[in-house]
């Protein structure tokens, strides 16, 4: 390993050094400052005679006398099953005071693409216990389903609730009760120390920590390190899933901070920027993270991803949520209005979507009426939402009886179906029955998305009459 003292330029997170032998692209670099501090970085561009290096911990303290060592390999994550229960920093070093990690193997953190031919299509229902998700936007094993949120919305509470409650129902009935639990890999990028404490407290309180691996890059940690943190987390998740047969739930928060770091580096490299200054390759870069969710044929385990991102200005056409939405298999959208009404969790189901839902629900998976009930509730809630605008102008009295029923439905949908609290765990049966309670407020003929036989089986005649009786009073 050769050592150089040939730094020619330092600019933002980048260092340029002259070399006299070839250096591989993406190779890991160690830089020792005159103060004796060792910083790590990665080769961004390698040319004959000169390389540019991106320094993870920031370039503070580096001067032209610092020495540069090329390690001759790309970045690796030491992985072992013993990582469960550990807390690491954003570069993968333990920060919980526990013992040194003895790796079973060292895996490249960039990760190779899964051959689409080797994938197994995800279709096993995950019960999160949250009606707005289970009933309307079902999550399945191997899916990547982000939470689109905004600053000040309780996305962390929802993520924690999912991490706590997620099970796969059939296995819960089996003799090994722990078998259905998920291992959680938590990758934090640029979150505040306070948020980090909330997460850690909850993990410890619920005992979830012992089946979790936590990576913490805090808001005051170097931004460049955020590029590495999710890759370390996903490499660990892949190892646990595909080598050790765990079902792994990966929570990444906050992807917005990750993308900001990407932009920072792009700007430092003087690249041609794409939309709003984000690099043109951001789609590819995000895809290389999100696409690491999935199932592989012949392997027991799975990687399910729940990335969280705060939409700048609550704008879902901003490049970060926009590109994410094009890659992930749907999205759960948090809503400011619902939040101020006190709905917990404030999930707006209309713009939310789970693309893999249709194959994960129905007879034998959840219940045969699931698809129709969800479709009908969507349509009815959308109709009720539309009518609210009209009510503001003409008042409720001007609307027909049918329209009034849809308005009532929309209200009760929010206050009874979506509203449930962060400690309430509803089974899929409860969720669907609740759905029928609400749908039975509507006239039977209005249920045009539901199979007639299912209506006969589940429709509650009494609920409709009750509502009418109340109205007659």
């Amino acid at each position, binding site marked *: 390993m050769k050592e150089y003292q040939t730094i020619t330029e330092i600019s933002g997170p980048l260092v340029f050094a002259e070399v006299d032998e070839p250096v591989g*692209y993406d*190779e890991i670099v160690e830089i020792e400052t005159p103060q004796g501090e060792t910083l790590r970085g990665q080769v961004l561009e390698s*040319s004959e005679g000169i390389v540019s290096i991106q320094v993870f911990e920031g370039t503070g303290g580096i001067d032209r006398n610092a020495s540069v060592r090329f390690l001759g390999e790309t970045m690796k994550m030491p992985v072992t099953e013993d990582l469960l229960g550990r807390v690491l920093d954003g570069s993968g070093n333990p920060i919980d005071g526990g013992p040194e990690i003895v790796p079973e193997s060292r895996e490249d953190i960039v990760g190779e*693409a899964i*051959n689409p*031919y080797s994938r197994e299509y995800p279709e096993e229902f995950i019960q999160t216990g949250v009606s707005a998700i289970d009933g309307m936007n079902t999550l399945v094993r191997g899916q990547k389903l982000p939470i689109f949120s905004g600053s000040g919305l309780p996305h962390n509470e929802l993520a924690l609730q999912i991490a706590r409650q997620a099970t796969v129902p059939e296995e819960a009935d089996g003799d090994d009760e722990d078998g259905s639990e998920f291992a959680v890999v938590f990758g934090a990028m640029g979150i505040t120390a306070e948020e980090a404490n909330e997460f850690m407290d909850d993990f410890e309180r619920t005992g979830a920590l012992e089946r979790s691996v936590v990576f913490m890059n805090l808001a005051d940690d170097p931004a460049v390190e955020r590029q590495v943190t999710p890759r370390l987390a996903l490499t660990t998740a892949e190892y646990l899933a595909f080598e050790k047969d765990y079902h792994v739930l990966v929570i990444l928060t906050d992807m917005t901070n990750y993308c900001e770091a990407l932009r920072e580096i792009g700007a430092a490299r003087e690249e041609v*920027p794409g939309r709003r200054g984000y690099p043109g390759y951001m789609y590819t870069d995000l895809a290389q993270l999100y696409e690491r969710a999935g199932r592989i044929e012949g392997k027991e385990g799975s990687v399910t991803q729940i990335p969280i991102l705060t939409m700048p200005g609550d704008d879902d056409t901003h490049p970060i949520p926009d590109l994410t939405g094009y890659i992930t298999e749907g999205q759960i959208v948090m809503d400011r209005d619902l939040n101020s009404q006190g709905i917990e969790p404030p999930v707006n189901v209309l713009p939310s979507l789970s693309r893999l839902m249709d194959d994960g629900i129905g007879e034998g998976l959840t219940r045969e009426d699931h698809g129709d009930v969800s479709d009908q509730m969507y349509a009815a809630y959308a109709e009720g939402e539309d009518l609210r605008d009209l009510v503001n102008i003409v008042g409720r009295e001007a609307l027909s009886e049918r329209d009034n029923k849809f308005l009532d439905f929309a209200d009760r949908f929010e206050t009874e179906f979506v509203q449930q609290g962060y400690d309430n765990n509803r089974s899929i049966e409860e969720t669907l029955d609740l759905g029928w309670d609400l749908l039975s407020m509507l006239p039977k003929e209005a249920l045009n998305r539901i199979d007639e036989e299912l209506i006969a089986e589940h429709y509650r005649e009494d609920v409709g009459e009750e509502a009418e009786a109340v109205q007659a009073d």
Partner: protein
Amino acid sequence: MSQADQTESVEQDGVIESVSGPVVTATDLDARMNDVVYVGDEGLMGEVIEIEGNLTTIQVYEETSGVGPGEPVQNTGEPLSVDLGPGMMDSIYDGVQRPLDVLEDKMGTAFLDRGVDAPGIDLEKKWEFEPEVAEGDTVEPGDVVGVVEETVTIDHKVMVPPDYEGGEVTSVESGEFTVEETVAELSSGEEIQMRQEWPVRQARPAGDKETPTEPLVTGQRIQDGLFPLAKGGTAAIPGPFGSGKTVTQQQLAKWSDADIVVYIGCGERGNEMTEVIEDFPELPDPQTGNPLMARTCLIANTSNMPVAARESCIYTGITIAEYYRDMGYDVALMADSTSRWAEAMREISSRLEEMPGEEGYPAYLAASLSEFYERAGKFQLINGGEGSISVVGAVSPPGGDFSEPVTQNTLRIVKTFWALDADLAERRHFPAIDWNESYSLYKDQLDPWWEANVEDDWPEVRQWAVDVLDEEDELQEIVQLVGKDALPEDQQLTLEVARYLREAWLQQNALHDVDTYCEPEKTYRMLQAIKTFNDEAFDALDAGVPVDEIQNVDAAPRLNRMGTAEEWNEFIDELENDLEEQLRALY
């Protein structure tokens, strides 16, 4: 250069000068533009995209981590080509035609390793060749010399390659051959094998383009009924995420009445491709009843696979489509999504530090798009036959904003526009094709087909539906202000009819066994049934029946069940009768 002849000797060696992501520069490489090269010690496949003095710029189709200056670059001296021959149907390829199933075997892992090559078609497999010419016949380029049963659905025609001279057949025999063995010899000294090679960036030669007059029947009511696509036509499906682009594309791949389907997953989700791989072998082709996969070729370059191969996968797909067109087949090509392809061009272009055009896209974006779509069409073939390629490109505009460059440049070329709408998708109106914004310029030239094959009055009935939907659009603006009940009765009734048009006819459930495919006759009859309701209801209104009573007739909600009815002819007969009876009984 195609995968099959990787054993041929390499010509010239160069040395890597610099590496930046997928872009590598090399010195001392004697290469032409678009030559395929092998980069570095691992032999990663790449393509020459720029030559400047002694410096050659290469885009590499695989990850370049760990590759450094000083490593060798080998030139093959040939452009990026595909292997064409039997075995392409029922296959799944990456962007440079490496079969993904073979790669899995060779790599021994579910993850895509680097530096592994495989020929696009099986070189070992023996095919039963049946000659169609006899010794002494004269053949010209493009002529069919024999037939191979490629799958249960597709007879693969072995043709004289277009760059041959042709001549008298001196020897031809039936029997079992591999794709590399000679099946016929010509007096010109040329030998014909089942395998051909063709550079992907060059269109295969064909005769004149004709005006398409036959629809590509898709089995989707809104597409067949309101915005039809012709066999040999071009269409674009733009829409924000979540609006159902991929489902719409897959529905077309499943149900359209093309002979051959080439489906390109360009920079999209891995799980989606897996779904296709799992579903298609099991679904029956509605025309033949054989598995859909038997007429399908999949190209999967998912979003996390190397970006340069994403740039090339569109060309790989269209070249394969052209090859089957040359056999006289009607080919449908779906590209999902062309925006990812454009982004791949943008990424490479920005690494080359080219002067950017709009939104960072290269200035040649419009030219590349039109060049691609122009490879579609209904063609006179060089062997005198006819064949067509229909191209359907999905577009993923950032933020759902159709004014962005890829959508706009696409719209200037394509003649059918299926605009997907997020609002419709949110209320689960699928397919979420916005009927106010979409259009088809093929309508008039396809009407004669509908009149001849479905019903004489098809254009009038369709126009009636369009008028009602237009009127609804205008009325909705008033309703938003004053409420529905403030409208005069006849307008309230129009809204009711429009609601049935939307819910019973335009909406179609892709997940329902029956509703997923709707034959043209059923599309017509369903529309006619709604028109019956309309006509009878307006008669009743004229006779003084209040609109509430008309809306509440028992039979009307059954209109919503037409799509899912299995015995639809009987169902609609009975429904039309009931509607007539019940509405007439009101006055």
